[in-house]
């Protein structure tokens, strides 16, 4: 069985009286591509914040590559191989696209060098993303779509073992989503990564991931094969509660 | 006026105007200084020092100039703003001494600024007659070109202690400001009061820039001392007075230090300060010379000089003038002359020993009516003291 890279156990986040994430367990192994879906306010992004160390959970445990990092700062997660993107691109606007990618390579990615790493330098990563021709342009000057891609490039620069993707498909055309998904699969295969991909639009994810977890009101209500999960009454109920659900929205 | 006389006068004036440049073929005597015109030091500098420089130069120029070994030469003042900044003081005196090569220099305002530029005066050999720098530390530098005009703290505090002793004051409370001035004055006060057997029942210090001293004054009032002494700076001098009045703390003797001699102290506080004592040295009644000085100052600058260091500033200029008249502009000779002779000034005879003015005695002054009367020592007094101090009005 492939190595267990990230394990969240009973992750619980409370803001004042509001429970945002309610005792969620999630395990990801090397080479897996796991989707996380859920309607608005399901706690997906908050959960992601805890996975990447941006937010310390109120209770629960986070184990990265066998090491307990609960309560550690975000850079520790990054240094242990967890890299993420942000939903609204947070590129370094004044730096060139190349420097944006180089950033991760200089820090989190610096100490790691695994055998199957195909992305040794910023140029290779930018080429892979089709951003080779804008390498020298300050990131703030790129189109929103390219900034989204660059977000992935920044995360890849960190030479991750676990890649967390936060709604990278939002706002893209069908063809673009398809291309992005192909790219993610390729990256996963070439570098042997574990990928966790959050998306609000269910349909998008279902086609590309091998496993999907569903969050509803902070709790995990399903986890497994996408086709089975899609028929799960609890999941249907959750999405139906949201005015006909994300299915229609995604279409 | 007769026609003829009129024409003669005009002709004489015209001749004088035309011929003046011919007579004044000598280049003017250039006298340089840096002083605060902006920033926090400007208040004191523009009260005590620069107006005197300007008035002195104008007065002498009106009479033909400064007499250099008997030969009159106009004075050209080269004054710059030091922005209340020690580094600018140093830089400006470097410019004056090395680039402009002025003939003489006048001192900057304050102890700190004087400290900063003193080594330059020694290095380039410029006599420095400082009217607003006080403290034993300055004299401790043993700078042969430095002459301090103000009475040193021990002298002032001795005079105060003698005055109080003569009025059978037996207990005192003091507050002092946390800087060189406050510390040296308070240390001197402790010694003087001990000598005279006056018991200090409370002694507190406070930082510069304080906005409320009432809690301290309330504590002191409860101890009911005969005398209260604040070794204070202008803002706190005003504050202490106002707040003592506010809580009706009215000891037999009430003394405040720097600022008491400022006309604005009287104008801001009003008649309530009757009987308040403080750091002063002279007033227009001291002598005919001080009266003349006072009137000239009011006429020239439309404001009164302060009754403490303004006169020292003027005395410094007088000493410079007398020395230049005698030995000319050779600065080494000037220094030696100043160091070795006695001078007559508006604050009396002055002689220096190791840079210290050893002639001017410690003085205690007191507000009576609109004047800051000298009340101690008896031979300098311009009025007899009000004791005990009347109630705050």
């Amino acid at each position, binding site marked *: 069985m492939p190595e267990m890279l990230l394990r969240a156990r009973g992750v619980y986040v409370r803001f004042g009286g509001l429970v945002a994430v309610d005792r969620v367990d999630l395990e990801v192994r090397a080479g897996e591509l796991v989707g996380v879906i859920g309607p608005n306010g399901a706690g997906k992004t908050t959960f992601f914040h805890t996975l990447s160390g941006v937010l310390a959970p109120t209770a629960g445990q986070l184990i990265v590559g066998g090491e307990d990092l609960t309560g550690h700062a975000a*850079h520790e997660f990054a240094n242990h191989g967890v890299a993420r993107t942000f939903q609204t691109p947070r590129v370094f606007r004044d730096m060139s696209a190349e420097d944006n990618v180089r950033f991760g390579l*200089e820090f989190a990615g610096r100490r790691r060098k695994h055998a199957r790493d195909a992305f040794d330098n910023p140029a290779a990563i930018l080429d892979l993303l089709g951003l080779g021709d804008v390498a020298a342009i300050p990131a703030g000057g790129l189109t929103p779509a390219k900034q989204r891609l660059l977000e992935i490039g*920044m995360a890849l620069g960190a030479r991750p073992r676990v890649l967390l993707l936060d709604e990278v498909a939002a706002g893209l055309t069908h063809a673009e989503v398809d291309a992005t998904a192909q790219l993610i699969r390729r990256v996963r295969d070439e570098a042997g990564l574990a990928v966790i991909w959050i998306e609000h639009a269910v349909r998008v994810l279902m086609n590309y991931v091998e496993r999907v977890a569903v969050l509803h009101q902070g709790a995990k209500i399903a986890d497994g094969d996408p086709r089975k999960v899609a028929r799960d009454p609890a999941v249907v109920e959750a999405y139906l509660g949201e005015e006909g659900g994300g299915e229609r929205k995604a279409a | 006026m007769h026609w003829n006389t009129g024409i003669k006068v005009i002709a004489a004036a015209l001749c004088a105007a035309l011929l003046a440049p011919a007579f004044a073929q000598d280049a003017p005597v250039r006298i340089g200084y840096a002083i605060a015109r902006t920033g926090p030091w400007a208040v004191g500098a523009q009260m005590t020092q620069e107006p005197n420089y300007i008035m002195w130069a104008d007065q002498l120029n009106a009479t033909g100039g400064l007499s250099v070994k008997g030969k009159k030469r106009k004075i050209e003042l080269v004054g710059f703003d030091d922005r209340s900044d020690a580094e600018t003081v140093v*830089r400006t005196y470097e410019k004056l001494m090395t680039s402009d090569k002025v003939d003489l220099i006048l001192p900057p305002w304050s102890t700190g600024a004087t400290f900063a530029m003193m080594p330059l005066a020694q290095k380039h050999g410029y006599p420095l007659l400082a009217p607003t720098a006080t403290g034993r530390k300055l004299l401790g*530098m043993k700078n042969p070109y430095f002459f301090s005009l103000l009475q040193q703290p021990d002298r002032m505090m001795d005079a105060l202690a003698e005055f109080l002793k003569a009025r059978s004051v037996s207990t005192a409370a003091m507050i002092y400001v*946390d*800087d060189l001035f406050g510390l040296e004055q308070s240390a001197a006060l402790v010694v003087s009061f001990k000598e005279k057997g006056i018991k200090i029942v409370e002694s507190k210090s406070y930082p510069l820039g304080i906005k409320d001293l009432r809690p301290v004054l309330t504590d002191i009032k409860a101890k009911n001392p005969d005398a209260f002494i604040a070794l204070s700076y202008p803002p706190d001098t005003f504050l202490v007075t106002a707040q003592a009045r506010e809580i009706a703390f009215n000891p037999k003797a009430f003394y405040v230090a720097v600022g008491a001699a400022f006309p604005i102290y009287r104008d801001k506080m009003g008649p309530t300060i009757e009987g308040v004592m403080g750091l002063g040295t002279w007033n227009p009644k001291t002598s005919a010379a001080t009266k003349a000085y006072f009137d000239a100052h009011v006429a020239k600058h439309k404001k009164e000089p302060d009754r403490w260091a303004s006169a020292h500033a003027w005395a410094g200029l007088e000493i410079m003038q007398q020395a230049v008249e005698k030995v000319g502009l050779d600065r080494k000779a000037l220094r030696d002359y100043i160091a070795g002779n006695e001078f007559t000034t508006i604050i009396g005879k002055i002689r220096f020993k190791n840079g210290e003015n050893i002639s001017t005695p410690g003085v205690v002054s007191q507000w009576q009516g609109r004047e800051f009367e000298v009340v101690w020592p008896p031979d300098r007094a311009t009025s007899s003291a009000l004791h005990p101090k009347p109630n705050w009005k």
Partner: protein
Amino acid sequence: MTANLRYTITAVLAAGVALAFMPWLLSDFLLSLALSCLMYVALASSWSMFSGATNYLSLATSAFFGIGAYVTAWGLETLPYALAVPLGGVIAGAFAALVGAAVLHLRGAYFAVLTFGLGELVRHSITYFEKTYARTVGRVLSDPPEAVTVYLTVLLITVATVATCAAVRASRFGLALAGVGADEERAQTLGVNTRRVKIAGFALSAFFAGALGAAMAVRWTYIEPMSVFNPFIGFQTVLIAMIGGAQTLLGPVVSAVVFSLFSELLRLQFPYAYLMLLGLLLIVLVLYLPGGIGSLFRGRWARA
């Protein structure tokens, strides 16, 4: 070392060597003017090194400067000048590290006001300490070094500061600082220990300010808290750096020289109204050249 950086550092060193001859070429006054230019070049550059890159607007420069000055005041009796200066830097740096650990989670105006408050706190602490334990406020330096020595020392510190700035900008550390300035959380998720980077940057910047304070203190013979913790030294530094463009290398340098010379010229030529002119100029500059002088220089120097 990249070619670009090598070029920059060579240029800085060459300028330093050229300036080292000034004491024998200039009058005392011009030399002291050069000294004040150098002082602000170093202060503004070291400030920009941290605050320009990270956008943490520090008003603590005068605190570091004052600490350095006090190291000289306390130490010069027993220490040689050559040792007092780096020691001043080290102590100021250590203080910054300590303080930074406590306050560097605050941003924006809070950080600015807090660093200002810290400077005042240090000033009053020293006043209180001196008054209570040494029974004095203010120290006299009995045997200060020659003006030439002071000039060369300050020149050395300035060259070191600018060269360090250039090296930092080209280094990983500089990239991390820039990351903190651009988006602190994002930098963290890419593996930057932002806390450590901020503390180190703050301390490094304080080191140079402290060394300068220690070097300059001997100019004034008499050291008292009021004059060496003068908040205007800190304000002026921020002003110069921001006018110059705190994100550039050359901006603060040019700005410090221009500002020092210009304000001196105005002071000497227009003895009464010059500060009004200066104020007016400042406003016009901020309104119409908001990127600072540095924004006028594009290319190698500005981005080096």
